């Protein structure tokens, strides 16, 4: 118990802060911060097993998150029948051609010796394949995008419950990670960082511009929810009764019946959105706990020991007969898959998919700050990092505003410096993150909760 005192203390301080927000601002804000903290925690766990267990830098978290989000769209949206009949066959045929192309290339690479001719033939097949696929898919894409462009204009999804997308998102992200890993692993760590950074930009570009698949920057709104809708809740009896019971002391003070009814209505409206957020919190908490148990088990398993050995001394591990590249690939795929889950969770919570909102700073580098600040290699640390950093990220604006007002208190309200500073308050959060990262890396390089390995 004593050993874990710092973990418990850190987590209780964090929960206390969130509760304070709930009391002083509103429970709605507190819960939305909490939910995003949980999602961030899932992302940091993904990044942490790559960086903390294996020392791999993955700067493509944004791309994997977006793929998870894409999975949410493709799973939950109802299929658009007209679009399928307009261009579905072309798209399916192109998909088939892509698979055929990959298989042919694989076959050639496997069965023929490395030579100049082989390289040329593979290149020719790829170029020819791309040209043919473009010729076939273009009319299909055009037809699909012309089906009610204001409302749909894309193929839609499978119409399944959105929860399934959390698994599918993991598969999408893991699949992409497999491809990147095959190319970039085995080279230097910095190369993986640059390669993942580039590919995440490409993923975003594809999601933004392939309207037939994702609606692009037109966004997909009104995704299905795993939780009840506020509007429905406000009309169900048991929920109204519940709110009444919770607030009976407050309501009993009001004697006038009509006034009491309006007060109750107000409470029901507020309560419904809190209730919905609580539902999400519950779902996310389940995911976080399952992942935490699995990652902790993995950390203390022989496999976890091997990963640490590879991280700390690659050559020695290699000499002991461990296949470093293969293990790196495995952990890269696993970590990315976890990030994919987080991406799907994020879209599930928002109920909308906005490809334009994926920015590397928010979805890649902020997650890295979380991992480093929290404590790389320690799952509890990574989760705590997700909580702390996200909390600060949200609360940075009010803190920044307060600081600006404090430092410029002597200046006139219309003074150009004060106006300028107040306008740039949103950017103080970058400054805070940067300084925080630098300070932590310098004075506590292992994070708030450092990695501690006990042999059990």
């Amino acid at each position: 118990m004593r050993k874990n005192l710092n973990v418990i203390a850190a987590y209780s301080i964090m929960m206390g802060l969130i509760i304070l927000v709930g009391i002083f601002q509103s429970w709605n804000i507190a819960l939305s911060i909490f939910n995003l903290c949980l999602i961030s925690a899932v992302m940091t766990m993904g990044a942490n097993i790559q960086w903390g267990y294996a020392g791999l830098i993955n700067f493509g978290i944004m791309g994997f998150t977006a793929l998870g989000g894409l999975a949410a769209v493709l799973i939950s949206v109802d299929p658009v029948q007209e679009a399928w009949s307009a261009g579905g066959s072309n798209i399916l045929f192109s998909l088939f051609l892509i698979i055929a192309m990959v298989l042919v290339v694989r076959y050639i690479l496997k069965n023929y010796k490395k030579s100049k001719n082989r390289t040329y033939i593979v290149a020719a097949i790829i170029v020819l394949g791309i040209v043919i696929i473009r010729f076939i898919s273009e009319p299909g894409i055009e037809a699909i995008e012309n089906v009610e462009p204001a409302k749909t204009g894309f193929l839609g999804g499978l119409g399944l419950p959105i929860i399934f997308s959390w698994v599918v998102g993991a598969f999408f992200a893991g699949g992409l990670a497999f491809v990147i890993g095959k190319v970039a692993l085995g080279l230097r760590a910095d190369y993986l960082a640059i390669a993942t950074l580039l590919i995440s930009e490409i993923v975003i570009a594809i999601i933004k511009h392939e309207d037939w698949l994702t609606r692009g920057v037109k966004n997909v709104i009104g995704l299905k929810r795993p939780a009840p809708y506020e509007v429905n809740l406000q009309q169900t009896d048991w929920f109204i009764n519940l709110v009444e019971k919770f607030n009976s002391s407050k309501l009993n003070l009001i004697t006038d019946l009509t006034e009491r009814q309006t007060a109750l209505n107000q409470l029901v409206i507020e309560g419904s959105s809190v209730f919905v957020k609580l539902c999400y919190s519950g779902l996310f908490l389940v995911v976080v706990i399952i992942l935490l148990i699995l990652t902790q088990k993995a950390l203390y398993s022989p496999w976890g020991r091997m990963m640490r050995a590879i991280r700390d001394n690659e050559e020695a591990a290699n000499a002991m007969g461990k296949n470093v590249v293969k293990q790196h690939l495995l952990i890269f795929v696993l970590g990315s898959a976890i990030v994919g889950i987080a991406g799907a969770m994020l879209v599930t919570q928002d109920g909308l998919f906005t490809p334009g909102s994926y920015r590397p700073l928010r979805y890649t580098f902020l997650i890295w700050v979380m991992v480093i600040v929290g404590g790389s290699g320690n799952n509890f640390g990574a989760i705590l990092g997700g909580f702390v950093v996200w909390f600060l990220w949200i609360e940075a604006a009010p803190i920044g505003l307060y600081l600006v007002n404090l430092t410029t208190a002597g200046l006139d309200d219309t003074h150009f410096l004060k106006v300028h500073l107040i306008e740039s308050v949103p950017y103080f959060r970058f400054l805070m993150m940067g300084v925080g990262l630098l300070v932590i890396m310098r004075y506590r390089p292992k994070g708030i909760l450092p990695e501690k390995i006990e042999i059990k």
Partner: protein
Amino acid sequence: MDFVNAIILLLNYIFIPALSYGSQLALGAIFVTLIYGILRFANFATGDMMSFGTMFVILFTWYFQSVGISLGVLPTALLAIPFAVIFMIGYMLIIDKFVFKYYRSKKSPPVQLAMVSIGVMFVTQAVVRIIIGPSDRRFFDGEKFLIKAGEFKEMTGLNEGLAIKSTQVLTIIVTLILVSTLFWFLNKTKTGKSMRAYSDNEDLALLSGIDPKKIVMTTWVIAGILATIGGALYGLDKSFKPFTYFNNMLPIFAAAIVGGIGNPFGAFLGGYVIAFSEILLTYAYRKFFMYVLPESMEPDGLVQLLSTDYKFAVSFSILVIVLLYRPSGIFKGKVL
């Protein structure tokens, strides 16, 4: 005649833009490669450092404009660059003293230094946005075109006009001067030679009495000059927006790796490789084929290999091909 038209078309839309874009990338890539070769880490703050330098150029340009100083046909920014460079070098040295020096003296692994550069990236980005804001800024003044498309058409009687922007010519000239001075410095002067020696083999260089402090400082000074001028030229040619500069980091890194990271000459050529392939692959060739092919064979579509939205894909593909076939880059850099 059609053939000449086609050539002019390619010159106008591919060759000249790619040459100037490539020069801008090349300056950035040399910056990356120097930091990588001598300080031994991948600097993820590259794009933001460039925007930081450009910010000073803009601020000085505004100041000069408000005082009424201008260079006539040339952009005022040229006058502002030397002042901006001084500030930029100061900033770089401060960052080095307070951030990077500690990890260098501790001999931290490069991965950790790369992570630290993320922190620097956040701070630099915040400072740029707080001082000048995140929006698009144009700070070009002076004569915009060297040759206008209309004038060219009148002069030659061709259908296709050739427009040469003065910023494009300026970019190419400044880059050539800067890069040749740099190579002269690296190859001929004592400090330059010791820098190369240090990059090649640190221990041996230290044994032969090279002062590492001086090397590191010179590197940051050169990096400051390259970052400011590269950023300013890009901003003059297109426009200044912090987020674009951040994204420019990707083709710059690709250029540095393609050229063989740690090798300045490779980085210089790598910039052009990336720029030319990006523009060649995303240009719509329809008009070109209309000139070259007989009427019956004219294409219907745009004949564009890739839409311009996927320009990152070009950098990435080149990177992957190079990594697969020549992991040390086209011009052998450090063997990685």
